[in-house]
């Protein structure tokens, strides 16, 4: 393996893009190489390193700087227009949509983007590179004989009928903190009225609120949680121990499918390089690596057709609605009133 992975301290990385609070930063390829592709992403560097290394194979003239930040910071970094990033990958579809709509993304047309299904791209500006179901995780030990829920109604009934069992043992995203959590909650709210019933019931159970899927999964495994709602399924499959306690449930009334999207920053220095890497991510080789090495399900229309309950979150201007600050504030207030009872 010729790619050298450097994990640098926060302070060091902060020099490059001051506006962004950087979580992690990795360098791939020859540090002396002439051209630099700078990727800003919400996905952990470890997850993406096989892809970057495969892309760099046979291209000694290139190196890749891979910066990880939260979805809100990724959005703010692009919005600041200070540049420094070429390709922006995020799981916050609404924020990515907002960036693309407001003209922060360069158009990119290639056979690879043309081959994407219509639902997996918006114009020639925003492209999905992975599709990830949003699931419920339960601890079979924690349920101890109670039936597994298959729909949101089941879930509401289960929680309402067993308050003593689930009190303090239910977890979900805090939408005020997590961009993904906000997206899931708003999509749930618009998809079905039963979401607010569920939120009310969860509110009676003193739920634990989380910033990441990983934290919820590990709390299921340690037994601190019996049930986690709206967890990224791809992380769950990767992190749950095989034969262990945690079980992944795709609710049958509907299960949202998150599209991890990429756009080319209009203010970046290497838009062509960004396009090449994007094409690689969308190529069959790249998609295979995303599925096998990064553990993220590849873009696959067949899989969606096979699961009628799977609903990809649509890449359309509707996503902009919940980015509106007034709307966001209203939603968070309502959510807090229902769940945290503050």
């Amino acid at each position, binding site marked *: 393996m010729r790619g050298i992975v450097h994990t640098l301290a926060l302070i060091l990385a902060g020099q490059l893009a001051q506006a962004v609070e950087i979580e992690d930063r990795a360098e791939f390829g020859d540090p002396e190489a002439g051209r630099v592709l700078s990727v800003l992403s919400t996905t952990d560097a470890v997850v993406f390193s096989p892809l970057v290394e495969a892309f760099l194979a046979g291209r000694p003239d290139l190196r890749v700087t891979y910066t990880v930040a939260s979805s809100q910071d990724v959005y703010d970094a692009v919005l600041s227009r200070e540049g420094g990033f070429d390709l922006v990958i995020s799981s916050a579809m609404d924020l990515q949509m907002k960036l693309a709509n407001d*003209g922060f993304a360069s158009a990119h047309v290639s056979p690879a983007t043309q081959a994407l299904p219509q639902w997996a791209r918006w*114009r020639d500006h925003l492209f999905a590179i992975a599709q990830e179901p949003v699931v419920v995780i339960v601890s079979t030990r924690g349920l101890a004989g109670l039936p597994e829920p298959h729909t949101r109604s089941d879930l509401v009934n289960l929680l309402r009928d067993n308050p003593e069992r689930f009190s303090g043992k239910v977890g979900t995203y805090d939408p005020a903190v997590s961009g993904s959590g906000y997206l899931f909650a708003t999509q749930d709210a618009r998809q079905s009225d039963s979401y607010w019933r569920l939120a009310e019931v969860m509110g009676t159970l003193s739920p634990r609120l989380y910033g990441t899927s990983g934290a919820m999964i590990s709390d299921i495994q340690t037994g601190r949680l019996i049930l986690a709602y709206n967890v990224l399924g791809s992380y769950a499959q990767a992190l749950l121990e095989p034969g262990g306690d945690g079980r992944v449930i795709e609710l049958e009334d509907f299960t949202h499918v998150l599209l991890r999207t990429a756009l080319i920053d209009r203010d970046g220095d290497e838009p062509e390089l960004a396009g090449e890497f994007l094409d690689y991510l969308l190529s069959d080789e790249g998609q295979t690596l995303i599925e096998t090495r990064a553990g993220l399900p590849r873009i696959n229309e067949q899989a969606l057709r096979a699961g009628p309950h799977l609903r990809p979150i649509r890449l359309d*201007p*509707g996503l902009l609605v919940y980015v509106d600050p007034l*709307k966001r504030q209203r939603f968070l207030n309502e959510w807090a009133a229902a769940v945290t009872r503050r």
Partner: protein
Amino acid sequence: MSHGAQIGGSIRRRLVLQLLVVAAILSGLLYFTVRSVADQAVEATQDSILGSAAIAIAEELRGGDEALVIDIPYAAFSMLGAVGEDRVFYRILADDRTETGYADLPLPQRPLSGLSAIYYSASYDDADLRLAAVERSVLVAGANVRVVVVVGQTRTAKQAIVGRMANRAAALGLGFFAIAAALAVLTARSVLAPLANLAEAVGRRGPQDLRPVTRPVPLELVPFVAALNGFIGRLGVALSRTETFIAEAAHHIRTPLATVRAQAEIALRQAGDDRIRATLRSVIRAVDDSARSAGQLLDHATVVYRSDQRADEDIDLGALVEAVLRSFAPTAELKDIALTADRPEQPVKVWGDRLLIESALRNLVDNAIKYSPPDTEVTVELREAKLRAILRVLDRGRGLAGMDASGLTGRFKRGANVEDVIGSGLGLTIVREVARAQRGTFKISQRKGGGTCAELSIPLR
């Protein structure tokens, strides 16, 4: 085809060209009409969706005791994605202060009224936008707040749809033009067909055919045909007047010549002086030649006249040959020429004009005797071969001396070796005219062993 006619343009080309110009104009009109209708239709569609989105947002506005509540419905923007993938912009103002959205989004120039949306176009963020705006009053803490909702969208999808439709309209226009062009060519051909037919019918006529054109022609050609018929009529009259004049002249010359000849013969018999007798003989010979020439002119006029107005009947060529030879017997005797007939026993029947055929045969025999030296033989041969009767007049005369045989049959054409013999040059012309009138052929050739072979062939009855 154009036989010396000057070509000044082509009706067909002009017709096709003008039809093509009309078709091109119509195709162009079709293209622009379809394009503009498509443009309006797509714009109306986009407007109505934009209007619905703006109205949907306006209807969710709530008043209250504390503040204006703005709750943008998800569908309001989601529906904008239905037509195509266009960028979406919005702006919500309360009493002219931007509450949310894009604070620099252009506002309509016209005043707003009520909940019906007004539509306008504007440029924003390097893009052409179509916008819809609605106004609504909301009661907030007892006061009337005027809220304006503006929703805008780029026009990429609209332009894509209009572009597709324009392509189709262009294909339609081109197809229309191609069909019209093909039809124009066919139309020009069918319109001009009667003209071509008429030209062919007139062109097919024989040289003597001066009948008026009687075939039915289209109304537009009637003046032309009437003028043509008038011309043909005048030509016929002029021609027949000429022929009549020649015949009259010949007739009027022949009669006094006969008188002169008779008087000269009487004078010859009475004259004793040898010099005077010699002079009288040469006078008689000259009168004879003049009489023959006058006779041939008359014959020619007769032949031309009768070619047009034939009196056909059954003719036995054998009997005709005998009769002609009998009439020439005295002349032949004068030159010691043996005049013989070689013909089958049975009659050889043809259908034709006796006067014409006799005239042809007389001219051939006359020529043969005239150009034969004394004490030779002139033979008239009659044969039947391949449904034709063949008349050959053979002599041992001076022949053609290498002259072109066809050149000799022209009017007033004479051979190069006959300057010492008086002749009009009309004889062979008469024979050729007869052959043509009887649908036969005439040829003249050098005879083996010296002399001439003249051959007239006529279809059998």
